[in-house]
């Protein structure tokens, strides 16, 4: 059983202000995105009170508003939430707020709030319109690219830096040059790639087809070549992560953020909370039941840590990480695959390799290593 001291420290608090999303991406894993429920000030207060008295706050952490489109609620809501957060934060540690948004609702009021509160913004955009609009659609099936672009322009007009998350599908892998052009032409200087994952209600990925690994390798290698030769500096999260892993191998005993109990705390808009991979919140498994382990209104961290269901899950995840270290040569650099992916793909947390591992960890690591070797090779 993990004691409070062996849990956390909290690195990421994910709060769902609403499950609703104003768009309807075909690869979305959120099961409840038509539900217009909103978090109340009372529940928000309970979340902050629970968090700061849990004993999990032992270092600065990030508060990420996500698991629904956060900008569906007005910026004024988050202004009030920030006041509540500051009132409850007696830890002495800084809390950085972050939004992951489709940017379609970003207006001047949002930009002013983001600047005033020094909020970090991540924009979900899948590249030029012909790629973005294939999956990121309105409920009527229309594209969302133009509105996302307007939102990014608005942020830039206010001098707000943001990073982007681009979901790679089988369709994207033919277009590294077009993606590179898109980032350069739109002044995007920080890029993260996610792969279309099998998660929750999204049970099939276009990337699960045969031959994807080689296509993914070619795509990523060419994209990095363009970035490394570019006069415009672009940070690619996967390259930076691989560099970090190569420079500082992860100790085999170390469990990474997603597999360490309460390093991530995920809370839905009703106060139900979970931990490990954020995608688990609001979902359940046939053997595990609900992945929500309590509610901030009534369940203490101590109670959850002694819950046999939680103990069994933690043990299963720990075995999965151990197996990664026993069987996968990439484990010293990645620390073990995300439990959410293992569960959604393999039905069991005590397993190892997933599609996400093969593409997002192994291929990106291999390609980064090749590029670094080339850069560092002595001139002949």
């Amino acid at each position, binding site marked *: 059983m993990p004691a409070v001291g062996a849990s956390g420290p909290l690195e990421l608090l994910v709060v769902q202000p609403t499950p609703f999303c104003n768009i309807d991406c075909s690869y979305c894993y959120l099961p409840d995105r038509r539900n217009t429920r909103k978090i109340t000030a009372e529940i928000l207060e309970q979340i902050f009170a629970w968090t700061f008295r849990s004993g999990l706050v032992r270092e600065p952490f990030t508060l990420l508003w996500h698991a629904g489109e956060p900008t569906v609620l007005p910026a004024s809501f988050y202004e009030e939430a920030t006041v509540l957060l500051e009132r409850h934060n007696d830890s002495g540690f800084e809390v950085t707020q972050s939004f992951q948004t489709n940017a379609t609702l970003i207006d001047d009021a949002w930009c002013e709030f983001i600047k005033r509160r020094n909020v970090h913004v991540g924009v979900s955009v899948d590249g*030029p319109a012909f790629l973005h609009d294939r999956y990121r659609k309105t409920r009527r099936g229309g594209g969302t690219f133009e509105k996302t672009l307007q939102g990014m322009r608005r942020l830039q007009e206010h001098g707000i830096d943001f990073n982007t998350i681009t979901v790679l599908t089988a369709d994207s892998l*033919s*277009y590294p*040059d077009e993606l590179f*052009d898109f980032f*350069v032409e739109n002044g995007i200087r920080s890029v993260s790639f996610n792969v279309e994952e099998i998660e929750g209600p999204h049970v099939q990925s276009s990337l699960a087809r045969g031959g994807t690994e080689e296509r993914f390798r*070619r795509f990523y290698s*060419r994209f990095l070549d363009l970035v490394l030769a570019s006069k415009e500096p672009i940070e690619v999260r996967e390259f930076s992560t691989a560099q970090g892993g190569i420079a500082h191998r992860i100790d085999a005993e170390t469990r990474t953020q997603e597999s360490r109990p309460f390093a991530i705390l995920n809370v839905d808009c009703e106060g139900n909370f979970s931990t490990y991979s954020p995608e688990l919140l609001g979902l359940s498994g046939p053997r595990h039941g609900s992945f929500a382990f309590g509610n901030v209104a009534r369940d203490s961290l101590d109670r959850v840590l002694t819950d046999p269901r939680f103990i069994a899950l933690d043990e299963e995840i720990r075995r999965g990480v151990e197996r990664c270290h026993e069987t996968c040569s990439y484990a010293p650099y990645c620390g073990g695959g995300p439990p959410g992916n293992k569960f959604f793909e393999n039905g069991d947390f005590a397993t190892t390799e997933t599609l996400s591992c093969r593409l997002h960890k192994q291929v990106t690591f291999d390609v980064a290593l090749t590029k670094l070797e080339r850069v560092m090779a002595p001139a002949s």
Partner: protein
Amino acid sequence: MRPAFAIAPDFHLSGGWSDRLLLAEGEGWRSPREDELAALMGESSEAESAVLLFTVPAHMRGRFWEMLGEEAAEGTGDFVTFAADLRQFLAFKELPPPADALFDLVVQDVGGAVDTAGLWALVNFGDEPLVLDWPDVRLRLGSGEGCRTSTELPAVAPPADDPNVMVAIRREAPGVDRPKLDS
């Protein structure tokens, strides 16, 4: 006989076919009707006889003009490296030029024609549309657009109204020079 036209797989071109294709009518050209347009579209983009349209990325177009600028200023424009990069790009896109293909930088003056002998593909690096003719069919390639031509039905580049800059990719043939910057 007219060639069939298709967008090369793994490429995205903005705009429609009705902006690109014209049919001969009398002394002039007109937009095709829908049924005529459908007849011009290739059934298979893999057919050797199809004219395949593609586009080069903006970063490559930028590098092309930088190279010309370097050549004009210092005489250091490196067309050979640029041609190798263009070849690599097309190979990535599963549209590899023939192994022995030659890359020519071609400047078409007003009223001037383009030698299309042995042409495998032509890429328009200028700002104005580049026109290619087949019997009764005219294709307009926008800035940054290119096409792999049909082996069975060679194209003709008619005299231009505006100067144009392009890269011609040719199957190696006697009398064709190695890559060079001179037009």
